[in-house]
Every structure is written in structure tokens, then in C-alpha cells.
């Protein structure tokens, strides 16, 4: 029997810390505000350890920044 899939979503955004730039894990508040909550790779590893069925990586600013899939993170 086919099972329902539980797919965690990892939302990412580019964050600047001084001159350093990296992708951070964010959560959104009513699709307006974003709160930085950690590192997408670490969280992905946690989901993998929890046997997630699949993972969705969402780069929130990809279209705006004209950015391709961040294969290095995936």
C-alpha cells in the first residue's frame, strides 16, 4: 500500500554578516517577516536522521536574485 509522504520544507535566504554571505534557514511570519532559525544543512541532517520521506529546499530569493539551484547545499 502506498504511504502518505511527510515532506519537511527547508526555507533558505541569503544572509549577510559583515562581509560574510551565506544561506541561512528561515521561518516566515505571515509570509512577510522572516526569522533566521539556523543552518539548512544541519537541519537537513536532523530530518534525515528522523527518516524524512523527502526534503524540499526552498530558496526564497532565487527568482529575485536570479540564482540557480544551490547544488552545494543540496
Amino acid at each position: 500500500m502506498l504511504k502518505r509522504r511527510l515532506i519537511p520544507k527547508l526555507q533558505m535566504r541569503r544572509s549577510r554578516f559583515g562581509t560574510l554571505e551565506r544561506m541561512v534557514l528561515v521561518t516566515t511570519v505571515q509570509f512577510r517577516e522572516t526569522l533566521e532559525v539556523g543552518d539548512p544543512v544541519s537541519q537537513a541532517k536532523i530530518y534525515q536522521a528522523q527518516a524524512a520521506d523527502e526534503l524540499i529546499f526552498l530558496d526564497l530569493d532565487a527568482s529575485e536574485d536570479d540564482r540557480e539551484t544551490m547544488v552545494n547545499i543540496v
Partner: protein
Amino acid sequence: MIGIVDYEMGNLRSVYNALEYLGAEARICKTPEELGEVDRLVLPGVGAFRDCMENLRLKGFVEALDEAVFRKGIPILGICLGMQAMATRGLEGGEYQGLGWFEADVVRLQPEDPGLHVPQIGWNDVRYQQGTPIFEGVPQHADFYFVHSYYMKCNRERDVVASCDYGGISVPAAICRENIFATQFHPEKSQDYGLKVLENFLDWTP
């Protein structure tokens, strides 16, 4: 050394990464000659039957596979479309000739349940013949990851060593014959039990 056949269709990297994760030495084989340099083979595959067979033929892999699998007898694992390619015929968008290693037709999934879509995408539980070496350490009815629109209808029941149910259809999940083993599901995408299947294949002496 495990060779992964690269005929430009298939998630080679996923398979490669899974094998390396298990500590094996894997090598992506872009040319037929390379098949003679490995002692175990994986035939991956994602896409359409016709394109798969066309690519295998054009790149000269059909003869090289025959040589490696039948003359030298090296163990081979087919995955998804790689498994389906081993059939006599594929009926996707016409009638096409497969490798003919198993007497079977590859036909479209037509589940009786109207709530089920084609392709089957996701986790489904697999019943296997007790004692099958490649499923050692895997419990009955463990879930594996499937993503396919066609399935292999085998003429010989004893070729089918594992199956899953999709809307009333008994879908062959794994087939086996001498040194040839193949899975409809993607072991490299099936978490721990998938890795166990791969691990068992690495140790398999048919």
C-alpha cells in the same frame, strides 16, 4: 570495484554516493570497455524504455553487458528503468525490444483504485521471498521508494522474488535470475533498508 553503467540516463550520482557511503569503490563507466574492468555492475535508469534501449545500443553497451553478465558471470543490479530494460519488450508509446534477459513485458500501471495516480511515487511496502540474500536483514513489509509509471509483467513467476501492491496490481519489486538481480524501487533513495539492500548486493555471491 563496482561499475555504474553511464548511458546518459539515470541518477548516477545518487547511486555512486550511496555506494561510496557504504565504503565501496564505485566507478562510473562511460564506455563499454570499462565494463570489463569491474567485478560488479549496476544498471541504473530513469526515463523512457525506448530511449534507454536506444542509448544502450548506440553506445555499444548491449554487447559489453552480454559479455560481462553472461560470459564472465559478474553480478549485476538493475534499478528502476535498468530493471525494466532487462525485459523482452517494452510497451511504452509503441513496442520496443529490451535486453531480453527476463521473459517479460513492460506495461503501464493501471491501478483499479481511482484515488491512486500514475506514476506511483513514494513509499510502498515490499513482501519478499524469505531467504532472498539481497533482502537479508530487511523485515517483511518494509517500505521502499518507488517512482514509476510502468511495471514488468513477468511470464515466469519464479523470476519475481519480491512484490508490492498498487491498487490491486501486484507490482514486481525485485526479480532475480542467476547472477542478475534487479529492483523496481530505488534502493539508493530508500533510507536504511535501501542501503541494506545495496550492502547485501555488494556481498552477494550468486
